[in-house]
């Protein structure tokens, strides 16, 4: 094969941005060509095979979107918010309800993944330009005042003078306006009840300060940033598999031991794979899931979301909620997505390996990504946070999170270490006594 590791090469492709094809960083040190000459002097020209149709195809996802006053089409009011019960946007003056267009329809996301070639991406997934302002200034067209929108936490703000709501729906390269949004579906009361139930089941060893300060009513509705990825790939896995033919016992000294006979096979699987709606966090903070330092794995656990029901981005879905801005680009997220796609592929192939009841050991995995589509999304999470101050002065931010589409709930509850250690000590003593008694009785 001319390209032993297409995954990592695809990951290094600059999907957007004016990088000249001869730029030195295109031949990144981890490229397959560089690996192959490991140990030899670096710095000479390594030919980089770049497909001609390398430029990403961009789906313009904010066409017709406008910033400023987003008015109800019936009465002209700007008091528009999501009606969680119906999933529609509702004018809070005249009660008129409507919905944004389905993202799948608007951007043709339901097409055959097998037809994907090269990189396709929503315009709201483009690379973030670091110099882009985080706080955007808009002129209120109702009264002329200047209104600031802090895109780190929302794409909406209220005009302090005339009380109208201003929305930002056009994409600027700061990651604040995604291609699509999945509206909240689980009501706040339901989320509070789930969080309460989750914590009540974990009361006994919970830290007393947490028990005293736990207020599930403080839960926040937050839209977190993700990339939703479709992948069209060809894969060839090869390795060895073992099929058990016999098991029997042999006498070794005084004891009976089991022995196994098996047939060894060379195993090859060659196929196409379509991965649909693989969802990856797109904020560097949320991607950091080192559980000894943070509880971001809790938010990761409540996936998956029904992203197929996402709609075109409209800031009116944001009213009453906050958001976190995307800060990661395709070149940082591609390796994560491709490694996960390989996991998904390997997992699916297992259904063809049932004959190898002793297992399969893959020695070579060639996955050639032929097409990929990236769409950025805000997905809805009810998030209860609790900052634990430890006795050594450090802090740890705990979460109880509810998937605001499926209701799946997961959390981290601060532990009363002293109490847990004491009880565990008691259990240990009882266990040792039991072990001594059992030994004494000769069991």
């Amino acid at each position, binding site marked *: 094969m001319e390209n032993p590791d297409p995954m990592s090469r695809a990951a290094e492709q600059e999907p957007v941005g004016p990088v000249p094809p001869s730029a030195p960083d295109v031949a990144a040190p981890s490229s397959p060509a560089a690996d192959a000459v490991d140990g030899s002097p670096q710095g000479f020209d390594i030919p980089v095979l770049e497909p001609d149709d390398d430029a990403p195809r961009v789906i313009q996802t904010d066409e017709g979107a406008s910033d400023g006053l987003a008015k109800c089409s019936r009465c002209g009011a700007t008091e528009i918010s999501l009606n969680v019960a119906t999933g529609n946007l509702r004018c809070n003056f005249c009660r008129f309800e409507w919905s944004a267009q389905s993202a799948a329809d608007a951007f043709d996301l339901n097409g055959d993944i*097998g037809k994907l070639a090269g990189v396709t991406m929503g315009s709201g997934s483009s690379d973030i330009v670091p110099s882009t302002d985080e706080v955007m200034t808009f002129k209120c067209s109702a009264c002329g005042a200047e209104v600031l929108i802090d895109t780190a936490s929302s794409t909406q703000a209220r005009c302090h003078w005339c009380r109208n709501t201003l929305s930002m729906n056009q994409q600027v390269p700061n990651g604040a306006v995604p291609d699509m949004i999945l509206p909240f579906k689980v009501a706040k009361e339901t989320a509070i009840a789930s969080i309460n139930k989750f914590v009540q089941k974990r009361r006994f*060893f919970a830290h007393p300060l947490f028990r005293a300060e736990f207020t599930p009513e403080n839960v926040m509705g937050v839209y977190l940033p993700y990339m939703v990825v479709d992948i069209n790939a060809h894969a060839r896995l090869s390795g060895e*598999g*073992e099929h058990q*033919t016999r*098991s029997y016992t042999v006498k070794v000294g005084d004891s009976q031991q*089991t*022995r*196994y*006979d*098996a047939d*060894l*096979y*060379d*195993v*090859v*699987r*060659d*196929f*196409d*794979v379509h*991965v*649909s*709606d*693989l*969802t990856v966090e797109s904020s560097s903070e949320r*991607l950091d*899931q*080192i*559980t000894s330092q943070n509880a971001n*794995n809790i938010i*990761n*656990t409540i*996936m*998956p979301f029904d992203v197929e029901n996402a709609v075109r981005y409209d800031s009116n879905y944001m009213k009453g909620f906050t958001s976190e801005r995307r800060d990661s680009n395709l070149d940082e997220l591609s390796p994560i997505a491709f490694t*996960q*796609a*390989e*996991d998904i*592929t390997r997992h*699916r192939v297992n259904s*063809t390996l*049932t*004959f190898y*009841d002793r297992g*399969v*050991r*893959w020695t070579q995995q060639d996955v050639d990504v032929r097409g990929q589509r990236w769409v950025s999304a805000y997905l809805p999470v009810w998030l209860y946070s609790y900052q634990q101050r430890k006795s050594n002065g450090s802090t740890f931010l705990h979460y109880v999170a509810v998937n605001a589409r499926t209701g799946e709930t*997961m959390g*981290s*509850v601060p*532990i009363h270490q002293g109490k*847990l250690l004491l009880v*565990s000590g008691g*259990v*240990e003593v*009882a266990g*040792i006594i*039991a072990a001594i008694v*059992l030994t004494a009785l000769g069991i």
Partner: protein
Amino acid sequence: MTTSAIVTAVHDQVLASGGSSGDDGGFVGFIFLLSGFAFYALMYFRYRNADKRHRHESETEATLLNMKAEDTFVRSKTGMSNRTMNGANSHEVRGARKKFF
């Protein structure tokens, strides 16, 4: 297919028991000697859920097409003492973000 059901069941059992349970009788006594540590770990994970993550490998929709299998018999092996293949990696997950340290 019954064989696949059995394989799955065995696999689940191995996972449930933490991957390494001896079949011999000393296991019960061993558990008693570790009971305090086991209790601590059980409660720690029940409260902190530091072991939880999104199972992207099974919870993501994917379709395999045009599957071509080429399996060739190599040889028979006899008298092995382990019940599963050495270095089997078809269930391995490499793309998880969650790490302990």
